[in-house]
């Protein structure tokens, strides 16, 4: 088995929460602030253990709530530290005020969202509703499919966030329950190679709490009648540019990761068995594995179906997605959350927006499943494939389909 591994890497069995903690340790993070919450708790417990064991030389602050978690990390980031936290659901909601501020200050924090369905009714189980609720405030969002992708992406997130053309916070999202507690074999890269990949950190060259170079941080720009609003526009446009720049940087960083470590993860969208496909299904997160198996079974029956997985969700990879869907005649989009404003899934809403600007408009349907920890199995994806095949034939989309409604 060791023959397939890079010389100094190691094979371990771990769940997604432990994989994220390993990545943070390998990234030599300086400062961690935490408040435990299900299903994230074991992740920060692993981190506390790594720090206590001396494996990771970082400060850990166990603060009184998530609002303070992010406030502490903002200060640390301004002082030049590489920073990390993880949260989800109600914790993420309580973090919202400093969460909004972080991208505007262009702080390259990395945070895992161990996704959890939002209240109410009460739910401690997985679902993307928490992460989707904060999709539009300027953080980069990437969703992982497997335990290995959690580990690899969490390391890559630092290189993306700290890139001088980006300088934005990054959320690496993994599914509560199925990835947080789902264990698989996982290759642990060598510390020296990860350090060489990440390079020297320089996170506060643009804004700093530094007595040697005092500056106004997070200034009040001023109201109408003066230069304030135009200054504000420059900040906002800069943020939007950073988001758009990240698409190229995410792609480059994933390519470099593949070259160095031998694992090529699709950076923006992954096309799976799309050659000669007549129609496609779309997925996001850990549901993708079962969906790929369902696509293989359908292909074996002669159905011309392919799959497109979205990894980078914010900024939305509109061009990459339109290119991936260019040849198909229908698409069925599976979301693990709800867009209350549109009575469909948010990934579906983004997909049809992206396709409006594409040369060819295709019929599309929204499927919602996996809420509150519900399982999305090969059988569920068989239904999605059958319904999307029908859509490709008649071109008539139906209302949103709720996959677990009859489970």
């Amino acid at each position, binding site marked *: 088995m060791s023959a397939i591994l890079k010389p100094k890497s190691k094979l371990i069995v771990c769940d997604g929460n432990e994989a994220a903690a390993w990545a943070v340790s390998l990234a030599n993070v300086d400062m961690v602030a935490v408040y435990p919450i299900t299903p994230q708790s074991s992740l920060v417990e692993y981190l506390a253990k790594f720090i206590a064991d001396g494996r990771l030389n970082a400060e850990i602050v166990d603060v009184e709530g998530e609002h303070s978690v992010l406030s502490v990390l903002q200060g640390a980031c301004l002082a030049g530290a590489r920073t990390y936290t993880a949260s989800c659901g109600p914790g993420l909601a309580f973090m919202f005020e400093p969460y909004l501020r972080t991208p505007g200050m262009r702080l390259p924090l990395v945070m895992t969202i161990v996704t959890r369905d939002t209240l109410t009714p009460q739910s401690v189980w997985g679902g993307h509703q928490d992460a989707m609720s904060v999709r539009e405030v300027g953080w980069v969002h990437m969703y992982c499919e497997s335990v290995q992708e959690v580990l690899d992406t969490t390391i890559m997130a630092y290189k993306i966030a700290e890139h001088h053309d980006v300088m934005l916070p990054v959320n690496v999202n993994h599914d509560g329950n199925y990835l947080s507690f789902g264990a*698989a074999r996982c290759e642990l890269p060598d510390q020296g190679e990860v350090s060489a990949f990440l390079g020297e950190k320089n996170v506060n060259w643009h804004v700093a709490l530094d007595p040697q170079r005092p500056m106004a941080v997070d200034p009040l720009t001023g109201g109408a009648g003066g230069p304030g609003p135009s200054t504000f526009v420059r900040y906002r446009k800069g943020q939007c540019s950073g988001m758009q720049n990240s698409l190229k940087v995410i792609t480059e960083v994933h390519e470099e990761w593949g070259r160095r470590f031998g694992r090529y993860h699709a950076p923006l969208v992954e096309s799976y068995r799309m050659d000669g496909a007549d129609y496609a299904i779309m997925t996001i997160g850990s549901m993708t*594995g079962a969906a790929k198996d369902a696509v293989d079974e359908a292909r074996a029956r002669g159905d011309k179906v392919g799959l497109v997985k979205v990894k980078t969700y914010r900024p939305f990879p509109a061009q990459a997605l339109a290119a991936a869907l260019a040849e198909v005649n229908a698409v069925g989009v599976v979301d693990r959350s709800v867009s209350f404003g549109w009575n469909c899934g948010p990934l579906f809403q983004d997909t049809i927006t992206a396709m409006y600007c594409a040369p060819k408009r295709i019929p599309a349907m929204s499927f919602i499943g996996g809420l509150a920890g519900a399982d999305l199995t090969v059988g569920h994806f068989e239904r999605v494939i059958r319904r999307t095949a029908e859509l490709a034939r008649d071109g008539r989309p139906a209302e949103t389909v709720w996959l677990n409604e009859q489970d």
Partner: protein
Amino acid sequence: MYEIRIHGRGGQGAVLAGGILATALVLEGKFVVAVPSFGFERRGAPVASYLRFDEREIRQMTNIYHPDCVLCIDPTVARAVNVFEGIKDGAVLVQTTAKPLGEFQLPPQIAMVGLCDAVSIALDIFKRSITNTIMLGAFARTTGLVSLESLQAAIQESDFRDAGLKQNMAALERGYNATEVHQIVREAAA
């Protein structure tokens, strides 16, 4: 692909058993995915944990509905849940029990049974009915799908230390040695 469903009660270590078995199988070069069922688990409440392994990469991160093997690490959990739900034809049951085979009502899909009085062994070793590592030994003995040596190595790699490590190594071996394996021979339908 081979799929195992582990049934137990909160506190017996069904989830940890899944993790140790996964590590042992990976040491033998297999690909493994272990997914616990989840909720507000409480001590004594029925819990389940799922494990699938294969010679090639496994992509499904889902629960298991049609297991090849049911590993039951509690003697009475079958009263609370249907441990045989969805089992495949030719399935294996590995059960902790002090009862003889004749007292079990087995569904026709079951082709092999491993019985191990893990509670008595656990009370002897741990002074508590923690049966998980004992029943991993029973699983290895019944199915032959993982070696005792790999399970020993996996326990060495786990978080057990000192006395706890020694006890669990002993538990594994005693579970392996104390398991009775029965092939269920049925008359072919006329």
